[in-house]
């Protein structure tokens, strides 16, 4: 992982930047709504629901997404819920735009990440840029292609599953049973999202290893690899998910109280938030590197069974030469 230190920081700072710029608008909006009133004092110490009720009716754009319950576990649950039910893209046009921009930044740097992991060596700045530039067109095509699958999950599968579960539970009077059905639905959605995610990740890895330019071929080969080794693929994904959940669990312990207006309190909560964001970026990169290693070993095994081809060496040289 240390090999990608610079990349982690790059991604992290783009995350911070993309959040801080719109933050200034929200801040301005809150401040002008508070004006010279006592509500400012209340908000500095805790919260002022009367002010919020007024702010909420008047707020537009990004400011309309502001809510006092976007704290620690509240932020997590809201985010997770939005991710699972597709509301992520419906929260606000501004947020969708920022989010897609951030996804694009990831797509851009993915080429560099994967090159680092596959070459097992740090890259210079120029090498990073050229690796990213080289794979970006293909990765963008893959992202758009995967977007079609995600769209189908959210727009087609999810409403049908919702309808199906509500039909199945329409005469149940025990909320716990209905909850089980709903959990089943979310699990299916999660599995579908994860399957598409893993498939396209593997396609990217295969493309980097074999210097492929064709999205279709990369996808077909990735699918073949995953189908031939389903146990290991699933095991790896599950472990990564568990690591992710562990961080999530830690973060959810932050109090759902508004911060006290002390520098210490503010700094501590801010630091915890940043640590969580970094940990998420790290988990995502960990999944790239470990999946790359796995694909590497699959390919090496398959190549080794074909006589006369020194598998590993070929990949390395090919990738490094370009």
């Amino acid at each position: 992982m240390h090999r990608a230190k610079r990349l982690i920081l790059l991604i992290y700072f783009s995350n911070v930047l993309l959040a801080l710029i719109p933050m200034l608008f929200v801040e301005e909006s809150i401040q002008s709504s508070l004006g010279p009133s006592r509500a400012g004092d209340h908000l500095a110490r805790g919260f002022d629901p009367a002010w919020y009720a007024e702010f909420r009716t008047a707020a537009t754009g990004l400011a309309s997404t502001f809510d006092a319950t976007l704290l620690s576990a509240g932020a997590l649950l809201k985010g997770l819920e939005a991710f699972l039910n597709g509301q992520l893209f419906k929260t606000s046009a501004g947020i969708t735009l920022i989010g897609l921009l951030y996804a694009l930044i990831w797509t851009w740097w993915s080429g560099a990440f994967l090159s680092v992991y596959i070459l097992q060596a740090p890259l210079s700045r120029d090498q990073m840029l050229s690796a990213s530039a080289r794979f970006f067109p293909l990765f963008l095509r893959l992202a758009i292609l995967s977007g079609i699958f995600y769209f189908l999950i959210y727009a087609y599968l999810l409403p049908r599953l919702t309808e199906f579960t509500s039909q199945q539970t329409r005469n149940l009077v025990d909320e716990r049973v209905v909850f089980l059905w709903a959990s089943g639905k979310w699990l299916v959605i999660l599995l579908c999202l994860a399957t598409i995610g893993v498939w396209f990740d593997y396609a990217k890895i295969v493309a980097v290893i074999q210097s492929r330019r064709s999205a279709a071929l990369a996808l077909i080969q990735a699918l073949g690899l995953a189908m031939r080794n389903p146990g290991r693929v699933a095991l790896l994904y599950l472990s990564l998910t568990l690591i992710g959940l562990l961080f999530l669990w830690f973060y959810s312990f932050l109090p759902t109280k508004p911060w006290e207006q002390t520098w210490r309190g503010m700094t501590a909560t801010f630091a915890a938030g940043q640590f969580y964001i970094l940990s998420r970026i790290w988990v995502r990169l960990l999944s790239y590197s470990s999946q790359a290693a796995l694909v590497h070993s699959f390919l090496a095994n398959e190549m080794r069974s074909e006589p006369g081809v020194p598998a590993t060496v070929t990949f390395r040289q090919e990738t490094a030469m370009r």
Partner: protein
Amino acid sequence: MFASRACEARSRRQEESRGAHVNTVRDPTWIVLLILVASAALSQAWAADYKLEARLDPAARTVSGSAHIRWSNKTTFAASDLQFHLYYNAWLNPQSSFLNSNRMREEALKQWRPNEWAAIDVSRLKILPGNGFAELDLTSAIQYIQPDDGNPHDRTVMKVILPRPVKPGETIEIQVEFKIKVPRPFARTGSRGEYFFIAQWFPKLGVFEKTGAWNCRQFIQTEFFSEFGTYDVRLVVPGGWIVGATGRQQSHRQNKDGTATHHFYQEQVIDFAWVASPDFYEFRDRFEHPHLKAVDLRLLLMLDHLGQESRYFTAAKTALKYFGEWLGEYPYGHLTIIDPAYLSNSGGMEYPTLITGGTRWLNLPGSQVPEEVTVHETGHQFFYAVVANNEFEDAWLDEGLTEYSTRKIMREAFGSAPVVRRYFEGFIPLLFEGIFQSDHPASGLGTFESELKLDVMATPAWQYGPAARRGRSADATGLTRVYGPGAYTVNSYTKPDLMLITLERHLGWGKFRSILQTYFSRWRFKHPRAEDFFNVVHEVAGEDFSWFWNQTYRSSHVFDYSVDAVTDLGNGLQSVHLRRWGEGVFPVEVRVEFSDATVVREIWDGQSRWTRFDFRKKSPIRLVEVDPDGKLALDVNYTNNSWVRKPASKSAARKWALKWAIWLQNLLEHFAFFS
């Protein structure tokens, strides 16, 4: 209702007459009293008594019933016809007035299967012999009328013209055979699985008013109105099922066909509702108080809410205590609390001696769920069941008074309500300590498209307009929604609540409490109108409040006072500018605090659009507040009520924007999944 008063009068007079007998046997007033006693005894029957028999068929989702109705004409006018509510026909077809006007219509049409619509079908109606009437079958004389909107598809009011009028003081007895088709849960009645909540289910007489006309409105969007009476009801349900109902259970008999008959009886009530399900767990408790009549409490709890029984009981007892102490005794001595089944759309409803609460499987301590709804519905036993105003016309009288009292009780007994958010289709709750629901319920209602302007409160409730499409406001849970509520909700709950809080703070609690007490004792077992409440206020407060009703009840004014600016004019002269943004006028106090900690309070009559207070003082003004004690609860913008020289707005905005930014950072990582 009249009988009740007559009953009290009779016993009082009996006391008097006994005394009279000893002292002045030959006094002619004694004979007059005797006659009065006799006439009082004669009129003891309530205006409408019902003997009902009903058999539930869960598989067919039907209830077959028969009603023996005894109606007495208590007015000075003859009644040439009888008019009945057939509420279940509100969901008979998509063209009914209820579904035509209702916001939930599309949802209903989408979710209901063809056999899940409701219906009430009267197969026979006849006059029973006696009381000067001969037996006569009137089935063929049944008409469906639409007195309110003329919609020919609406069959919620049934009328029969009688062979001869029922004269003042006369009684008529009729027999009605009917069958209802129980719908998917809608408007607090219906069935889900084996949970049947059956309300507004039998042909119910309208109210023949003192004016000599029937008040029997179509069922469009309001609640109900009916006469006091005795209900003697036998319900046949599958054996082993648990039944909750209005009244006290008299007996329970197992039948040979595997069914069981449950017998309930209750005097002096305006309605009868019941629930039957095999899924209930039954709990009992008792409310006791040094000065109030004890109340037996019976709770029917769903399996997924086991463990929450004490929360229901505590809330009901709290409500009985506060309402009892504030208003007067709860007369019935027993109360059944129904914990509604999940998604059964029957929660939060009141019926005489029976209420429905509402909670969730995952519920957090301190969430005030189900406490608040239980307090509210228990409160309705006072404002609805005992003081039975006409909910078609003056829905705000019971809803507003109950909402206002509930808010006060919740604050006093349970403290401020923390904000609870629910995630994942509402299954997962999260409670935010330190973030409370607003103490200024009017806040946020003051935009240009204010909900408070949807209609005028004095409009009869059944005529209130629909929701405005562009409204957006904070709702009771502190969350927000894009579409505001309809004029019915605003004018029956929100605004009367604000109006009553304002009045209470203006008059002081002592005086306001005696207003409530007087209103309750004077209108017990009667049907007051809005003017009757206003008259009690004027009488007890010793002051005419027409100026207040004109601006609140009879108009859609909004109230908004603000501190506009504070200016230093030099030489220690400082002036405070106040402004009235709303059309509503109300006297307000102004509190000015100087840096040397001195405080000056001024009164502004609030009549003009703006005013200025000048102060000559070396020490600069530190803080200005208009209406510092929040007496004018109707003020729609609380933030502009204050001005501070050194506001903390900048750091506060940064702090909260930073929280928002961390949430966004988090969200961005979700977006990264799609890279």
